[in-house]
């Protein structure tokens, strides 16, 4: 647990579990969780986009809930169980169903926003395992993508939902050329 220390802005020990591995590091109180994860733990899959809690690239699971780690102090996360994008694929490289869906549906172009998108879709599908397209778009409210126009990210989320519900095989047969169902609603 965090210590009570009020004299000088000194260093605090933060101990967390990230993707099942325990870490302990000294931090200044003003150290943000995303920089703690990236620079002190070396897990650079979690990105810093806007640094103002708008773009969602820094999204990770803090005690099982998707949060923006640029707006949380590392000391606030002391004792927490954290999952970052590095914790999604299996050790043998097998993708998580959400990642597999992004692969199949071409859900990324430059990929910068993808870690945050995968984590927030994980949250969305645990809250609502069978979302409508409109609910997916609402769920992506806090994540910006500057490449895709969101259409394929939404398709990826819906496909991931089907995979997780067992309605679609983990590896979908290639239907990219026959599937022509453009979504009509624009990005919110």
């Amino acid at each position, binding site marked *: *647990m*965090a*210590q*009570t*220390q*009020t*004299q*000088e*802005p*000194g260093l*605090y020990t933060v101990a967390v579990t990230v993707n099942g591995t325990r870490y302990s590091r000294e931090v*200044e*109180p*003003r*150290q*943000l969780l995303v920089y703690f994860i990236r620079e002190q733990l070396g897990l650079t899959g979690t990105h810093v986009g806007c*640094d*103002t*809690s*708008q773009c*969602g690239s820094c*999204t990770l699971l803090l005690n099982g*809930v*998707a*949060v*923006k780690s640029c*707006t*949380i*102090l590392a*000391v*606030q996360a*002391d004792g927490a169980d954290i999952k970052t994008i590095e914790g999604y694929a299996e050790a043998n490289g097998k993708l998580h169903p959400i990642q597999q869906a992004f692969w199949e549906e071409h859900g990324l172009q430059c990929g910068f926003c993808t870690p945050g998108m995968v984590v*927030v879709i994980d*949250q*969305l599908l645990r809250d609502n395992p069978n979302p409508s397209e409109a609910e997916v778009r609402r*769920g992506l*409210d*806090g*994540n910006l993508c500057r490449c895709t126009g969101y259409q394929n990210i939404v398709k990826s989320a819906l496909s991931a939902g089907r995979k997780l519900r067992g309605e679609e095989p983990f590896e979908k047969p290639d239907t990219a050329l026959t599937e022509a169902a453009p979504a009509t609603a624009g990005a919110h």
Partner: protein
Amino acid sequence: MFPAKFAYAAPSSLEEALGLLSTEDSKILAGGHSLLPLMKLRLAQPSLLVDIGRIPGLAYTRRENGVLAIGAMTTYRDIGLSPEAAAAAPVLVHAVHEVGDPQVRARGTLAGALAHADPAGDLPAVALALGGTVRVVGPNGERDLDLDSFFVDMLTTTLDEKEIIREIRLNVQPAGAGAAYQKFDQPASHYALTGVAAVVSLQNGTITSARIGVTGVGPKAFRPRAVEQALIGKPAEDEAIKAAVQTVADGIDVQGDIHASPDYRAHLARVLTRRAVLEAAGNAA
């Protein structure tokens, strides 16, 4: 972006937290989704952050007779998932889904939003429309602050610097009353350019009482009392409601910025008040 240096303390009780608040320029940290952005921009530079996030027992929603009691550390997400909140104040549950985005809602707290008193925050309008109190603890013990007089000015409330909100106590929506929250948001930030919450009671299609909270228009959320009075006795119909709400922004120091001029905000206030009252009346039994 990093905040300026500060000291940090994570007390394990409210009493301990109150002691720490005697430090000059100390600030309470709850969800941190208003304070930390200000600190990163160096608009706030507290010397000490008192993190109340590790004090047990501050996150809950409880029904106590006619009151929905919401703990200081209860997040928007908690409220959105709370069956007690959904039964006692559906308009609150609707409105929390209008705040920020899912990740922000997982950290931001109702108590923090009211203490911060952002002039464009959603929840101050809803809290005013429901009515209730803010229960605080301070060096002189506990007191309840009436929400009707809680908002003083931009980012300013009747909360004393050395006090901590323990609980928000909102009136349960009266039996048979309908409520609604109408918002026109700034699409990038999702802050309300204007937001209006209304709680309306009817008898035989006639409005018998109305409580309205308006945000995003003036320097603080407010109740347009003249409109609330003008609605009483009116039929719950569009034209009558439209006529009754025209004064909603009168006497208010209507704010303007690059997103909306004062005239436009006043117009939005009239339109959204009409829509909120009409929708609330439609939701009334």
